[in-house]
């Protein structure tokens, strides 16, 4: 039996997810594509001609198992075209031929930043437009494998979320999806989970500046980790770090509303009270707990870490 095949196409995209994939480790990009035949990738395939590749695929002379889409979807040729096709037309022609469709990153998943161009309505994600199931493909669409479009969200996605999902599918393992069709294996965690600043979060000790080791970034500096589904502090970036570990707030880039918010470096508050509270608790409960924790001072957390006992 030959290798399974993968075709990577881009819609309206900044290439961020491709760049991310090039940093993949365990398996690396090259290890992955020694197991899977990469039919075409717009940034890597310099020998192949995309139009010839598409012609073979569309005429069923080449089977595609995995269709990966990066970028938002449009059917407007003024915005995007591959030969004489728009990305939308290509997806339409390919959707029933392939076994799986994977959305790589937030643009293909939710539409993301390109949808903010309000003058043109025909820009969306594959199966979602932000949180609504009003994507390019119908809400009940499924590929031959029985899966809907599998969304690997993030701006960009972490390479491991993609490679591990792909390997699970190659191995024939069942991939459980959440309500946004993201693999639960990764997106059941919050980026808060595993954050090195959790002690500061528990005792409500705020970070005053970016880039320091001390303090929680949730209270003033805009951190979205307690309400963002992503294992960024479980599967580290480049195997070494994450935003919160480096003293930068989580921007919530794996969620549908990532580009809909403003001012990513400041916590949205009303009369000093945070507008959004951590997932799973009511605002009433959260405020009560916060008040208690703030009253009871933890001495250790009032010092620089190097100065603690």
């Amino acid at each position, binding site marked *: 039996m030959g290798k399974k095949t993968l075709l990577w196409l881009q819609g309206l995209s900044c290439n961020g997810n491709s760049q991310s994939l090039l940093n993949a480790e365990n398996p690396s990009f090259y290890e992955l594509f020694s197991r899977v035949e990469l039919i075409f990738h717009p940034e890597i395939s310099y020998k192949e001609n995309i139009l010839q590749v598409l012609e073979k695929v569309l005429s069923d002379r080449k089977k595609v198992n995995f269709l990966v889409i990066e970028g938002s979807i449009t059917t407007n040729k003024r915005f995007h075209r591959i030969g004489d096709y728009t990305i939308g037309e290509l997806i339409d022609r390919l959707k029933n031929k392939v076994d799986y469709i994977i959305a790589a990153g937030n643009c293909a998943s939710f539409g993301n930043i390109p949808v903010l161009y309000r003058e043109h309505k025909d820009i969306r994600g594959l199966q979602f437009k932000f949180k609504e199931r009003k994507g390019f493909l119908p809400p009940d669409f499924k590929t031959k494998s029985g899966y809907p479009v599998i969304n690997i969200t993030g701006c960009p996605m972490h390479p491991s979320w993609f490679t591990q999902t792909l390997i699970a599918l190659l191995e024939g393992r069942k991939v459980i999806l959440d309500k946004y069709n993201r693999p639960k294996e990764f997106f059941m965690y919050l980026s808060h989970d595993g954050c090195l600043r959790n002690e500061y979060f528990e005792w409500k000790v705020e970070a005053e500046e970016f880039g320091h080791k001390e303090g929680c970034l949730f209270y003033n500096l805009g951190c979205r980790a307690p309400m963002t589904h992503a294992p960024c502090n479980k599967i580290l970036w480049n195997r070494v770090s994450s935003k919160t570990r480096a003293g930068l707030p989580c921007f919530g880039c794996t969620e549908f509303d990532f580009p809909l918010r403003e001012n990513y470096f400041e916590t949205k508050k*009303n*009369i*000093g009270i945070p507008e959004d509270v951590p997932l799973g608790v009511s605002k*009433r409960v959260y405020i009560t707990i916060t*008040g*208690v924790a703030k009253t009871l001072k933890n001495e250790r957390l009032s010092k620089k870490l190097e100065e603690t006992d």
Partner: protein
Amino acid sequence: MSKGRKYSKEERKLEIVKVACKLFAKRGYYNTTIPDIAEAMGMSVGNIYNYFKSKEELAKYIMRYSSRLLGNEIRKINEEDLSTKEKVYKIVKRFFEIAEEQPELIEYFLRVFLSNREIFNEGCEGFLCVSEVITELMLFFEEGAKIGDFRQQEFFPAFTTLMGPLGGMVFLKGEGVLPKSPVEYSDELAKNIWNALKNG
């Protein structure tokens, strides 16, 4: 307490709280003894200690009880389908009504909790014994500012703008210098508070 009916331990505890709150509010914390409370309850001194280990513990419990009661009242208003302005008017009015119905609760707050801070050092620091009221007011302000009715500011200036005048009015009543009852000033005071907090 009326005889002939058996009270549950919880009911009796609540009764002690109400009686003690009245005595503390009237005579002051230091001028009220556990034997005084026992006498007013028609209980033995020893039996009171079955409910509260010390006078301090009782004092803290009263504060938590009052906060829960007032917090619940604000919560009801918070959950009503009213405009922010109407809620301000209603909170002010309800506060004065409670001050009239159960004057000992507010008196206790002003004359014991705020005046004898040393009693409340352990276990009642900061907002620990009044958290229900603070929580409800935080939710009230947050919601009002979120929908653009309140001007954005920090919590404490907003908090004192609302609660300061309420305490002040009840204090003046306690001093016997108010010509009318606080409830009769309710709308006028609410108007001042709304004007101070509203957006634009």
